[in-house]
């Protein structure tokens, strides 16, 4: 095993550089997905009839394999990071919309009535009552979206080495260095688990009223 963290120079990145790239390529789409999902979900909550068609479209989008998505986008964005990140953003969106809708819908009617009685307008009621109560559901969605996004980035290797840590897989087969593949898989999995743990921590900080024990799921 010659140098677990010793990468061939044609990857153009150091190990930590690849980790940084991977985090960016994996997390940016989730962020974009969240920013789009919030208004879409609010629309679905407001107008109930919007939800079933939105759910249908998102289920279909989610089922399209990442590689098929990538190659069609090559035509528009070339073999670039953008091409990798757009499908990941769409997958995140698909996971997040139902999570947010369920979360916001789970706010009890009495709570909303109380907010209204206290004189809160629609915007403040959304930001100060509905959203905070929906946080556990939203974070649950974010956990799924983030972890899958981080693990899917590697597939980007197939479209001109745009897969961050996934690029090490290419190097591993080309230079017959299995250690690089082991490294890639372990680091990617570790990043996912770390992101997952961070999100659990964020939920605890955002929802101090939730019981600590027995609420791990």
């Amino acid at each position, binding site marked *: 095993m010659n140098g677990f963290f010793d990468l061939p120079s044609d990857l153009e990145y150091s190990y930590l550089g690849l980790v940084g790239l991977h985090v960016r390529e994996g997390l940016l789409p989730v962020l974009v997905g969240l920013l789009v999902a919030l208004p879409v979900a609010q629309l679905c909550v407001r107008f109930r009839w919007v939800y079933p068609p939105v759910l249908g479209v998102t*289920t*279909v989008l*989610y*089922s*399209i*394999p*990442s*590689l*098929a*998505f990538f*190659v*069609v986008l*090559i*035509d528009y964005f070339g073999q670039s990071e953008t091409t990798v990140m757009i499908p990941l953003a769409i997958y995140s969106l698909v996971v997040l919309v139902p999570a947010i809708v369920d979360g916001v819908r789970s706010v009890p009617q009495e709570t909303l009535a109380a907010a209204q009685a206290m004189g809160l307008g629609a915007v403040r009621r959304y930001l100060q009552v509905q959203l905070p109560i929906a946080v556990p559901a939203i974070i649950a969605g974010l*956990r*799924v979206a983030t*972890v*899958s996004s*981080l*693990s*899917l*980035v*590697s*597939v980007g*290797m*197939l*479209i001109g080495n745009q*897969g961050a*840590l*996934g690029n090490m*897989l290419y190097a*591993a*087969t080309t230079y017959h260095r*299995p250690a690089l*593949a*082991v490294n*890639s*898989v372990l680091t*990617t*999995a*570790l*990043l*996912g*688990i770390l992101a*997952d743990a961070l999100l659990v921590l964020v939920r605890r900080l955002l929802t101090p009223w939730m019981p600590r024990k027995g609420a*791990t*799921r």
Partner: protein
Amino acid sequence: MNVLNFAHAFFGDSAHWHGYDGIPTRLVEHITYSLEALLYAALIGLPIGLVTGHYGRGGNALAMIATAGRALPSFGLLVLMFIWIGFGLLPVMIPLVVLAVPPILVTTYEAIRSMDPSPVDAARGMGMPEARVLFQVEVPVALPLVLSGLRTAAIQIVSTATIAAYVSLGGLGRYIIDGLYQKNYEKVVGGATLVAGLALATLVIFWALSRITVSPGVRRSG
């Protein structure tokens, strides 16, 4: 539309419709691998999910398995198995099954555990033994969710089997990977269309399956 032109050119070429690299051959290959992987994953995931769900134990362990399963990069695992084991079906089956088990396992567990306890109590009160409670009450009621777990697994398998072409497996991914290397964009788009079509067909099949197998009473309440 550029992409549409490519797809049209690909499907219009009669050379793509026969031979070992023809669409029918590749499609059958893809479906065979996918079904085989789904079968293994279901054989592992369903019994464990049913039993743990029935007794309501092991939820935390299953949640950890689910996170780990999602965190493991499917593509990385594929390449790693290929490097360790070499050519063949086994290095492809391992990652496919590893990826498909968590969704089946976790959804089945959740479906059985979270169902309304009153019919289960009623069944016990009628004197049903545990096995009959599980198979005649819990499974039919939980079936829509169990099927959705299987659907997620199937979709993931179809998608990952595409990537498996990178490690010299047949299937529809062949067109995409080969096309990318040969800079033959027509082939790439054709392959992508076929793969997306197969994924959508999987969705439709599971939708039809749930229509047929889920009892009307359960469907109405769900």
